[in-house]
């Protein structure tokens, strides 16, 4: 175990969250829950990124009173990455949900294995 586990508690939480999302993805049979698992994973990563940008005692990088010294602001890059990442995850979630709707209207179930079984029964 390295020296910084407790200093990096935010990252630690995000790591655990990531794995919770991962487990959801593996174990849940309900598609909606799977999607939630995916979202948890994504959020964990954004938490991780946000933690990366933080510097103790500094403020968000919006220039106030014309002060542009590095001492006053936190790192802006992770914030930007999080913004981009959120848009990506919104798009993906929308796509997944619409796929789920489509499957549900057709097979009236949210269980992927059951859908496979039905498909095999159709023999197509």
């Amino acid at each position, binding site marked *: 175990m390295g020296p910084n586990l407790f200093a990096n508690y935010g990252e630690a939480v995000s790591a655990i969250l990531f794995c919770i999302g991962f487990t959801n*993805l593996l174990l849940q049979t309900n598609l909606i829950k799977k999607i939630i698992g*995916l979202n948890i994973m*994504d959020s964990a990563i954004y938490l991780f990124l946000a933690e990366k940008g933080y510097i103790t005692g500094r403020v968000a990088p919006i220039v106030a009173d014309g002060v542009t010294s590095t001492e006053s602001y936190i790192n802006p890059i992770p914030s930007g*990455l999080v913004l*981009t990442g959120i848009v990506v995850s919104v798009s993906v979630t929308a796509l997944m949900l619409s796929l789920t709707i489509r499957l549900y209207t057709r097979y009236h179930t949210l269980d992927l294995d059951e859908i496979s079984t*039905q498909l095999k029964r159709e023999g197509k």
Partner: protein
Amino acid sequence: MNFICNIPFFSILLSLFSGTVCSVLSAKAAKIVNRVVILAVGLMSAILLLYLLSTGESFIYWMGHFPAPWGNEIRAGVLEAGMALFFCIIMYLSMAGGAHKLPGEVVESKHNLYYILVNLLLSSLLALVYTNDMFTAYVFVEINTISACGLIMIRQVGRTIEAAVRYMIMSLLGSGLLLFGLCIMYDLTGHLLMSNIKESVGLIVANGEYQIPLIVSVALMCTGLCIKSALFPFHAWLPDAYGYSTVSSAAILSSLVSKGYIFLLIKIIYRVIGFSVFNSTRMIDVLFVFGLMGMIFGSLSAIKENDVRRMIAFSSVAQIGYIYMGFGMGTQAGMVASIFHILSHAATKSLLFIAAIGLTDVSGGSRRFADLTGSAYRNKWAGVAFTAGSLSMVGVPLFSGFISKLLFAQAAVQVEGKMLASLIVLGISTVLNAVYFMKTVIRIYTATTETPYEGITFRHMKAYAVTLVFFILLNVILGVSSQPVVDMIGQGLAMFA
């Protein structure tokens, strides 16, 4: 700066923009735009390739007003330009070869959406090929994933939607891992541009700090991309996705989408982590083992399959195993072999998909082998093309498959510990390939006296037949004069460093 250096930027933006434009066009116009864009990008890439071959140096292109490490960048070398050119060729041929199936399988009003997806897919592939920035790569990986998913489920039958869901779940898992690895890498180095990360990684390795996070980050990124490119244990979505989507989609997916990810992995190995650092992480052994397993299990599943298109799809699993086996050897020669196999497999697999559709069309749309009996007589061009593709897959000399197997074997001979394993598995896989492909070839050439299905003649499928001829030519060219291509790959890899 030479004006030609703008080509990577032009080709990415052109295909991106054409996607937007297609959203307001009619299906017919969108089709024309799509074809023209692919051709234009292909032409530009060819010019760029010639230019790069003549100068012999890669170049960096700023995306904006700021140099590295502040702004975004793209980068073009011989390998990138060659890949872009090749992707365009395959994409054009796949689109042309499957065009006649589109009206039957996709609702008329959604055709222009299809072309939007293809354009965006092209742009994302180009961006993956040219990018010099990890986060840009991530964003375009997502575009690639979503548009690929769209290509799978645009033909809306139960199987494709189910396959699309599985595909998305797997892919998003992969993206998540990739992004996580990327974040850790960013935390360790403080950069997002590939060249800068590589410098910092060099420093880190030299200083001996952060060893564990570095390895974990590399492992996460690799695993993410492996999952996305359907390496063996993660291939569950593949047969349905390739087997039931509309044929152009299947051809594009199998030959381009997964290859885009693999190419990104190559870029990461060379331009981000560094070849020697990557080899020292032992990640290559994992890739090697899974590659070998993929080669065998993919072929075994293909033998058991009773549906011709699913069989071809399973064979893709095996072929992706070959590529990862090449990575796993951890030598330059293995890498060259893998990259050549990317080309050869792309050319062959899309040919097989396109030819298979010609055969199933003259068998009442059934893909079961029983119905395919004698179909090569009903559609002679597709029969010949399927045979050519099969021969290439089996690795008969004069076709591209032989050369890639030769390169793999040559690479394997140079690696002390992995030689025997890779040669034996290569042999087993070749023989298994031969079994199921030749079985199919014999099947389609077994004449039946009474058949309920109509044949088709050249007059009714001119475009299709011409496409097939081009595909066969591409295969034979790769098989006969492979040396220039191999040289180019070597040169491109040298430029990577």
